[in-house]
Protein backbone atom coordinates (compact mmCIF):
# COMPACT_ATOMS: atom_id res chain seq x y z
CA UNK A 1 0.00 0.00 0.00
CA UNK A 2 1.17 3.52 -0.77
CA UNK A 3 0.41 6.80 0.99
CA UNK A 4 -2.57 7.54 -1.25
CA UNK A 5 -4.19 4.28 -0.13
CA UNK A 6 -3.43 5.08 3.51
CA UNK A 7 -4.97 8.54 3.08
CA UNK A 8 -8.16 6.94 1.80
CA UNK A 9 -8.17 4.74 4.88
CA UNK A 10 -7.69 7.81 7.08
CA UNK A 11 -10.83 9.30 5.55
CA UNK A 12 -12.72 6.08 6.08
CA UNK A 13 -11.55 6.04 9.68
CA UNK A 14 -12.92 9.53 10.37
CA UNK A 15 -16.11 8.57 8.56
CA UNK A 16 -16.44 5.53 10.87
CA UNK A 17 -16.19 3.19 7.91
CA UNK A 18 -12.77 1.64 8.42
CA UNK A 19 -12.84 -2.07 9.31
CA UNK A 20 -11.23 -2.57 12.76
CA UNK A 21 -8.60 -4.96 11.42
CA UNK A 22 -7.13 -2.17 9.27
CA UNK A 23 -6.72 0.24 12.18
CA UNK A 24 -3.50 -1.29 13.59
CA UNK A 25 -1.65 -1.12 10.30
CA UNK A 26 -2.86 2.44 9.73
CA UNK A 27 -1.64 3.53 13.18
CA UNK A 28 1.77 1.99 12.48
CA UNK A 29 2.03 3.86 9.19
CA UNK A 30 1.05 7.17 10.79
CA UNK A 31 3.86 6.80 13.28
CA UNK A 32 6.49 6.62 10.54
CA UNK A 33 5.00 8.81 7.77
CA UNK A 34 5.02 12.55 8.46
CA UNK A 35 2.97 13.39 5.34
CA UNK A 36 0.14 11.03 6.25
CA UNK A 37 0.25 12.11 9.89
CA UNK A 38 -0.20 15.74 8.79
CA UNK A 39 -3.00 14.69 6.44
CA UNK A 40 -4.70 12.89 9.31
CA UNK A 41 -4.45 15.99 11.47
CA UNK A 42 -5.90 18.20 8.72
CA UNK A 43 -8.86 15.87 8.23
CA UNK A 44 -9.50 15.76 11.95
CA UNK A 45 -9.60 19.58 12.06
CA UNK A 46 -11.83 19.71 8.99
CA UNK A 47 -14.34 17.28 10.45
CA UNK A 48 -14.32 19.30 13.66
CA UNK A 49 -15.08 22.58 11.83
CA UNK A 50 -17.77 20.90 9.75
CA UNK A 51 -19.50 19.63 12.89
CA UNK A 52 -19.37 23.10 14.42
CA UNK A 53 -20.75 24.59 11.19
CA UNK A 54 -23.75 22.29 11.06
CA UNK A 55 -27.09 23.99 10.88
CA UNK A 56 -29.06 23.27 14.06
CA UNK A 57 -32.35 21.46 13.66
CA UNK A 58 -35.32 23.66 13.05
CA UNK A 59 -38.74 22.26 13.77
CA UNK A 60 -41.39 22.99 11.18
CA UNK A 61 -44.65 21.10 11.06
CA UNK A 62 -45.29 20.24 7.43
CA UNK A 63 -48.29 18.03 8.08
CA UNK A 64 -51.07 20.68 7.98
CA UNK A 65 -49.88 21.91 4.59
CA UNK A 66 -49.26 18.40 3.21
CA UNK A 67 -52.64 17.25 4.53
CA UNK A 68 -54.35 20.10 2.71
CA UNK A 69 -52.55 19.30 -0.52
CA UNK A 70 -53.37 15.61 -0.48
CA UNK A 71 -57.01 16.20 0.52
CA UNK A 72 -58.03 18.86 -1.99
CA UNK A 73 -59.98 17.31 -4.83
CA UNK A 74 -59.27 18.67 -8.25
CA UNK A 75 -62.46 19.31 -10.19
CA UNK A 76 -60.75 20.55 -13.29
CA UNK A 77 -59.94 18.18 -16.08
CA UNK A 78 -56.61 16.51 -15.48
CA UNK A 79 -53.73 18.08 -17.40
CA UNK A 80 -52.87 14.62 -18.72
CA UNK A 81 -56.15 14.64 -20.59
CA UNK A 82 -56.34 18.32 -21.49
CA UNK A 83 -52.88 18.75 -23.00
CA UNK A 84 -53.08 15.81 -25.46
CA UNK A 85 -56.62 16.83 -26.37
CA UNK A 86 -55.65 20.39 -27.23
CA UNK A 87 -52.55 19.17 -29.10
CA UNK A 88 -54.67 16.81 -31.20
CA UNK A 89 -57.15 19.57 -32.01
CA UNK A 90 -54.39 21.92 -33.14
CA UNK A 91 -52.72 19.26 -35.28
CA UNK A 92 -56.08 18.35 -36.78
CA UNK A 93 -56.77 21.98 -37.59
CA UNK A 94 -53.41 22.42 -39.29
CA UNK A 95 -53.86 19.21 -41.24
CA UNK A 96 -57.33 20.21 -42.42
CA UNK A 97 -56.19 23.61 -43.64
CA UNK A 98 -53.20 22.14 -45.47
CA UNK A 99 -54.99 19.21 -47.09
CA UNK A 100 -58.02 21.11 -48.24
CA UNK A 101 -56.09 24.12 -49.37
CA UNK A 102 -58.25 26.32 -51.57
CA UNK A 103 -56.17 28.35 -53.97
CA UNK A 104 -56.67 32.07 -53.98
CA UNK A 105 -58.99 33.11 -56.77
CA UNK A 106 -57.11 35.23 -59.29
CA UNK A 107 -58.39 38.74 -59.70
CA UNK A 108 -59.57 40.02 -62.97
CA UNK A 109 -56.56 42.25 -63.14
CA UNK A 110 -54.25 39.30 -62.59
CA UNK A 111 -55.98 37.32 -65.33
CA UNK A 112 -55.57 40.24 -67.66
CA UNK A 113 -51.87 40.41 -67.01
CA UNK A 114 -51.54 36.67 -67.56
CA UNK A 115 -53.50 36.92 -70.78
CA UNK A 116 -51.40 39.84 -72.01
CA UNK A 117 -48.20 38.06 -71.16
CA UNK A 118 -49.43 35.04 -73.07
CA UNK A 119 -50.12 37.19 -76.10
CA UNK A 120 -46.68 38.80 -75.90
CA UNK A 121 -45.00 35.42 -75.73
CA UNK A 122 -47.01 34.18 -78.74
CA UNK A 123 -46.16 37.29 -80.72
CA UNK A 124 -42.48 37.01 -80.00
CA UNK A 125 -42.57 33.36 -80.99
CA UNK A 126 -44.24 34.16 -84.28
CA UNK A 127 -41.68 36.92 -84.99
CA UNK A 128 -38.84 34.53 -84.38
CA UNK A 129 -40.49 31.96 -86.58
CA UNK A 130 -40.78 34.49 -89.42
CA UNK A 131 -37.12 35.37 -89.10
CA UNK A 132 -36.19 31.75 -89.22
CA UNK A 133 -38.41 31.15 -92.25
CA UNK A 134 -36.83 34.05 -94.09
CA UNK A 135 -33.42 32.63 -93.45
CA UNK A 136 -34.59 29.30 -94.73
CA UNK A 137 -33.50 27.49 -91.56
CA UNK A 138 -36.88 25.97 -91.15
Amino acid sequence: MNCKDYQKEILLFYADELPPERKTELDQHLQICFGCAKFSNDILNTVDVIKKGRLPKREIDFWPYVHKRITVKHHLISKWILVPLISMLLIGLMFTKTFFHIPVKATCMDMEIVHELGMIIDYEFLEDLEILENNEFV
Partner: protein
Amino acid sequence: MYNRDRDEDILLVQKSKKGDKDAFGELVRRYQSDLYQLARNLVSSTDEAEDITAETFVRAWRYIKSFKEKSSFKTWIWKILVNLSRTHLRRRYLQNKIFFWQGFFKDKDDHIKEIEWIDPSTESDPEKTFEQKNIQQVVRWARGRLSRREQEVFTLKYDKELKISEISEILSLSENTIKVLLFRATKKMAKELKDY
Protein backbone atom coordinates in the same frame (compact mmCIF):
# COMPACT_ATOMS: atom_id res chain seq x y z
CA MET B 1 -28.41 8.41 14.04
CA TYR B 2 -31.65 7.07 12.73
CA ASN B 3 -33.23 5.03 15.51
CA ARG B 4 -36.65 4.60 13.91
CA ASP B 5 -38.35 1.33 14.47
CA ARG B 6 -38.44 -0.10 10.97
CA ASP B 7 -41.36 -2.38 11.84
CA GLU B 8 -43.43 0.63 12.86
CA ASP B 9 -42.58 2.33 9.60
CA ILE B 10 -43.67 -0.76 7.66
CA LEU B 11 -46.99 -0.76 9.51
CA LEU B 12 -47.57 2.93 8.88
CA VAL B 13 -46.68 2.52 5.21
CA GLN B 14 -49.14 -0.33 4.83
CA LYS B 15 -51.89 1.72 6.44
CA SER B 16 -51.03 4.69 4.24
CA LYS B 17 -51.32 2.49 1.16
CA LYS B 18 -54.92 1.78 2.19
CA GLY B 19 -55.59 5.51 2.33
CA ASP B 20 -55.07 6.14 6.04
CA LYS B 21 -54.00 9.79 6.11
CA ASP B 22 -53.36 9.77 9.86
CA ALA B 23 -50.81 6.99 9.44
CA PHE B 24 -49.13 8.99 6.70
CA GLY B 25 -49.20 12.05 8.95
CA GLU B 26 -47.26 10.08 11.52
CA LEU B 27 -44.62 9.27 8.90
CA VAL B 28 -44.46 12.95 7.96
CA ARG B 29 -43.86 13.96 11.58
CA ARG B 30 -41.13 11.35 11.96
CA TYR B 31 -39.09 12.43 8.97
CA GLN B 32 -39.89 16.09 8.41
CA SER B 33 -37.13 17.54 10.53
CA ASP B 34 -34.29 15.55 8.99
CA LEU B 35 -35.65 15.92 5.46
CA TYR B 36 -35.96 19.66 5.88
CA GLN B 37 -32.41 19.96 7.12
CA LEU B 38 -31.15 17.85 4.24
CA ALA B 39 -33.05 20.03 1.77
CA ARG B 40 -31.67 23.11 3.47
CA ASN B 41 -28.11 21.85 2.95
CA LEU B 42 -28.69 20.85 -0.66
CA VAL B 43 -30.42 23.98 -1.98
CA SER B 44 -29.03 26.69 0.34
CA SER B 45 -32.31 28.54 0.70
CA THR B 46 -34.83 28.25 3.51
CA ASP B 47 -37.92 28.98 1.40
CA GLU B 48 -36.93 26.62 -1.34
CA ALA B 49 -36.04 23.93 1.19
CA GLU B 50 -39.53 24.24 2.69
CA ASP B 51 -41.15 23.90 -0.73
CA ILE B 52 -39.04 20.92 -1.66
CA THR B 53 -39.68 19.15 1.65
CA ALA B 54 -43.43 19.66 1.38
CA GLU B 55 -43.43 18.50 -2.23
CA THR B 56 -41.45 15.40 -1.20
CA PHE B 57 -44.22 14.35 1.17
CA VAL B 58 -46.95 15.11 -1.34
CA ARG B 59 -45.22 12.95 -3.92
CA ALA B 60 -44.62 10.20 -1.39
CA TRP B 61 -48.38 10.11 -0.71
CA ARG B 62 -49.16 10.11 -4.40
CA TYR B 63 -46.86 7.18 -5.18
CA ILE B 64 -47.02 5.26 -1.93
CA LYS B 65 -49.05 2.49 -3.52
CA SER B 66 -46.23 1.80 -5.95
CA PHE B 67 -43.62 1.69 -3.15
CA LYS B 68 -42.50 -1.93 -3.19
CA GLU B 69 -40.79 -1.87 0.24
CA LYS B 70 -37.60 -3.42 -1.10
CA SER B 71 -35.74 -0.62 0.65
CA SER B 72 -36.75 1.17 3.83
CA PHE B 73 -39.27 4.00 3.72
CA LYS B 74 -36.54 6.34 4.94
CA THR B 75 -34.28 5.52 1.96
CA TRP B 76 -37.19 5.86 -0.43
CA ILE B 77 -38.32 9.26 0.79
CA TRP B 78 -34.79 10.62 0.93
CA LYS B 79 -34.32 9.53 -2.66
CA ILE B 80 -37.43 11.53 -3.63
CA LEU B 81 -36.07 14.58 -1.86
CA VAL B 82 -32.62 14.31 -3.47
CA ASN B 83 -34.22 14.00 -6.92
CA LEU B 84 -36.47 17.01 -6.31
CA SER B 85 -33.48 19.03 -5.12
CA ARG B 86 -31.57 18.15 -8.27
CA THR B 87 -34.51 19.19 -10.46
CA HIS B 88 -34.78 22.42 -8.56
CA LEU B 89 -31.07 23.22 -8.88
CA ARG B 90 -31.13 22.40 -12.58
CA ARG B 91 -34.08 24.72 -13.11
CA ARG B 92 -32.39 27.47 -11.15
CA TYR B 93 -29.20 27.05 -13.18
CA LEU B 94 -31.12 27.30 -16.48
CA GLN B 95 -33.07 30.34 -15.31
CA ASN B 96 -29.83 31.96 -14.35
CA LYS B 97 -28.22 31.18 -17.70
CA ILE B 98 -31.14 31.89 -19.99
CA PHE B 99 -32.80 34.80 -18.27
CA PHE B 100 -29.75 36.15 -16.43
CA TRP B 101 -31.93 35.85 -13.37
CA GLN B 102 -30.07 36.43 -10.15
CA GLY B 103 -32.44 34.21 -8.21
CA PHE B 104 -29.46 32.08 -7.46
CA PHE B 105 -28.37 34.68 -4.98
CA LYS B 106 -30.43 34.93 -1.86
CA ASP B 107 -32.72 37.87 -1.43
CA LYS B 108 -32.55 40.05 1.65
CA ASP B 109 -35.28 38.18 3.55
CA ASP B 110 -33.69 34.80 2.95
CA HIS B 111 -30.34 36.12 4.07
CA ILE B 112 -31.90 37.36 7.30
CA LYS B 113 -33.60 34.01 7.87
CA GLU B 114 -30.27 32.25 7.52
CA ILE B 115 -28.59 34.51 10.01
CA GLU B 116 -31.40 33.74 12.41
CA TRP B 117 -30.74 30.01 12.10
CA ILE B 118 -28.73 29.79 15.27
CA ASP B 119 -28.51 27.06 17.87
CA PRO B 120 -30.93 28.18 20.61
CA SER B 121 -28.48 27.04 23.32
CA THR B 122 -25.96 29.72 22.29
CA GLU B 123 -28.41 32.61 21.96
CA SER B 124 -27.64 33.93 25.45
CA ASP B 125 -23.91 34.18 24.64
CA PRO B 126 -23.29 36.83 21.94
CA GLU B 127 -19.69 35.73 21.39
CA LYS B 128 -20.68 32.13 20.77
CA THR B 129 -23.50 33.28 18.51
CA PHE B 130 -21.11 35.37 16.45
CA GLU B 131 -18.60 32.53 16.22
CA GLN B 132 -21.30 30.10 15.19
CA LYS B 133 -22.62 32.43 12.49
CA ASN B 134 -19.09 32.89 11.18
CA ILE B 135 -18.32 29.17 11.02
CA GLN B 136 -21.67 28.41 9.38
CA GLN B 137 -20.99 31.01 6.71
CA VAL B 138 -17.50 29.65 6.08
CA VAL B 139 -18.62 26.01 5.88
CA ARG B 140 -21.50 26.96 3.56
CA TRP B 141 -19.11 28.84 1.30
CA ALA B 142 -16.68 25.92 1.26
CA ARG B 143 -19.53 23.54 0.39
CA GLY B 144 -20.35 25.74 -2.57
CA ARG B 145 -16.98 24.80 -4.07
CA LEU B 146 -17.99 21.15 -4.31
CA SER B 147 -19.69 19.61 -7.32
CA ARG B 148 -23.36 18.67 -6.99
CA ARG B 149 -22.58 14.98 -6.42
CA GLU B 150 -19.80 15.74 -3.95
CA GLN B 151 -22.18 18.00 -2.03
CA GLU B 152 -24.82 15.29 -1.87
CA VAL B 153 -22.39 12.65 -0.63
CA PHE B 154 -20.78 15.07 1.78
CA THR B 155 -24.12 16.20 3.21
CA LEU B 156 -25.44 12.69 3.63
CA LYS B 157 -22.23 11.53 5.28
CA TYR B 158 -21.23 14.42 7.55
CA ASP B 159 -24.60 16.04 8.26
CA LYS B 160 -26.85 13.02 8.31
CA GLU B 161 -24.13 10.53 9.40
CA LEU B 162 -25.37 7.81 7.10
CA LYS B 163 -23.36 4.74 6.23
CA ILE B 164 -21.76 4.50 2.81
CA SER B 165 -24.09 1.59 1.99
CA GLU B 166 -27.13 3.77 2.76
CA ILE B 167 -25.80 6.68 0.72
CA SER B 168 -25.14 4.26 -2.14
CA GLU B 169 -28.79 3.19 -2.05
CA ILE B 170 -30.17 6.73 -1.90
CA LEU B 171 -28.02 8.08 -4.72
CA SER B 172 -28.09 4.87 -6.79
CA LEU B 173 -24.30 4.82 -7.04
CA SER B 174 -21.84 2.06 -6.24
CA GLU B 175 -20.08 2.11 -2.88
CA ASN B 176 -16.74 2.62 -4.59
CA THR B 177 -18.06 5.71 -6.36
CA ILE B 178 -19.36 7.04 -3.06
CA LYS B 179 -15.93 6.52 -1.47
CA VAL B 180 -14.19 8.33 -4.33
CA LEU B 181 -16.64 11.26 -4.11
CA LEU B 182 -16.26 11.38 -0.35
CA PHE B 183 -12.49 11.38 -0.65
CA ARG B 184 -12.55 14.25 -3.15
CA ALA B 185 -15.11 16.26 -1.19
CA THR B 186 -13.25 15.92 2.09
CA LYS B 187 -9.93 16.89 0.54
CA LYS B 188 -11.50 19.98 -1.02
CA MET B 189 -13.14 20.95 2.26
CA ALA B 190 -9.86 20.42 4.12
CA LYS B 191 -8.15 22.77 1.66
CA GLU B 192 -10.84 25.46 2.04
CA LEU B 193 -11.09 25.20 5.81
CA LYS B 194 -7.40 24.85 6.68
CA ASP B 195 -7.32 28.36 8.19
CA TYR B 196 -10.17 27.69 10.64
